[in-house]
């Protein structure tokens, strides 16, 4: 039953990626990862209702996929070792995730089957009252309360971080696309002239590579390290 194409929400980016690979009947390899990149990005584009905190997780994986693809486009590019680990890492995580996704269905069957074990109930007191223990002190109360507050703070921090990290990537792709709807040409220096962040330039570049792969744009350059000219490819 889990093999039907799910149109509903996916549990997460790995879930989506796994489903795309399995739908194509592919093994988890570098080649299959770059094959499903387009579909992965298309999914994010089409589903605007992905919750913000989840979207960030999707975009992290999208960035990794774009990276893998751009590596395939530029085979001569020398990569730092850390960067070349991305493929293996994604492969590894997908395989780990797959194990649990499959076994979760077993857990579902076992957990929801009418096979229960019960403990004896009669020892449970009828009324639950609060009796402060002898070791209750002001300090202990204070500590408990601080722990509780910490528990909530911990969550908020994490969300902020993951949103900040990735939202700009998908924005950039749409930005370039919408600009090219109105304009025929665009140049890279101009596009990145206003930004101060290096990451933004990298993201713009990756987004362009993606658009080249989709055959939406053509890039040209007069000399090495010169400005890059971006042209829209007309639909035939």
């Amino acid at each position, binding site marked *: 039953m889990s093999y039907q194409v799910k149109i509903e929400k996916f549990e997460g980016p790995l879930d989506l990626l796994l489903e795309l690979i399995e739908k194509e009947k592919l093994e988890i390899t570098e080649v299959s990862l770059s094959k499903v990149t387009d579909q992965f990005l298309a999914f994010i584009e089409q589903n605007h209702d992905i919750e913000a905190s989840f979207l960030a997780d999707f975009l992290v*994986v999208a960035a990794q996929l774009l990276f893998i693809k751009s590596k395939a486009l530029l085979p001569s590019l020398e990569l730092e070792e850390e960067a070349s680990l991305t493929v293996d890492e994604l492969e590894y*995580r997908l395989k780990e995730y797959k194990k*649990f996704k499959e076994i979760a269905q077993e*857990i579902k069957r076992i*957990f929801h089957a009418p096979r229960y074990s019960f403990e004896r109930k009669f020892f449970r007191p009828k009324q639950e009252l609060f009796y402060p223990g002898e070791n209750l002190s002001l300090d202990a109360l204070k500590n408990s309360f601080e722990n509780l507050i910490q528990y909530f703070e911990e969550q908020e921090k994490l969300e902020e971080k993951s949103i900040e990290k990735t939202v700009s990537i998908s924005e950039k792709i749409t930005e370039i696309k919408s600009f090219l709807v109105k304009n025929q040409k665009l140049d890279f220096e101009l596009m990145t002239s206003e930004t101060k962040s290096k990451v933004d330039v990298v993201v713009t570049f990756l987004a362009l590579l993606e658009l080249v792969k989709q055959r939406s744009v053509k890039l040209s350059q007069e000399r090495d390290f010169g400005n890059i000219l971006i042209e829209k490819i007309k639909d035939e």
Partner: protein
Amino acid sequence: MNKKKEKEESAIPENFKESLESVIFVAGKPIQFKKIMAIFGLEKRQIVEEAEALQAEYKEKNRGIHLLLTKDAVEMVTNPAFSKHTSQVASFELEEKLSDAALETMAIVAYRGPITRAEIELIRGVNSVYTLRNLSVRGLVLKKPNPDDARMSIYEVSEKFLKHSGLMHETDLPNFSELSKKTTFEEYLDQKEKDSQKQILDSVNRE
């Protein structure tokens, strides 16, 4: 000469199995191994072994009472085979179905617990705060302080999860020994390397 074990284990008393059975019965709730250790003056290993023997005996004879074992405690519960009848006397309060996200997280905690939230999120690829909190509230996973790092908590399956699933031990989960093994990224890379070397060797040998 072999040095003997650092701690000399006490001799097991006569009728240990039977008196252990009585102790577990009279506790009426999960009784901690620590407590049993104090009662009999034995090591944890000796107690767990005997409890497991008793558990196997109940199972073998398909007795109405079974023994539920966790890492820390042991408890008498009903045989899940008879839940058609027992559930007319007792029941679980919450009967809402678990979502796929909850099942996935539950599976990771069950096979890899005790496990930190960061490790769970690494496997799932998504923030799991809400799913974990939901499972904690339902009493299916336990949140405990991490003995290695006070800033983080660790999660493991609860007795309630085992009872609801009719399992007497977490090792009764399907394919437990294989899935509970943690493979680190480094180990995965090593294995991949070995596999590809083997493939090359195989293809050379074939020629």
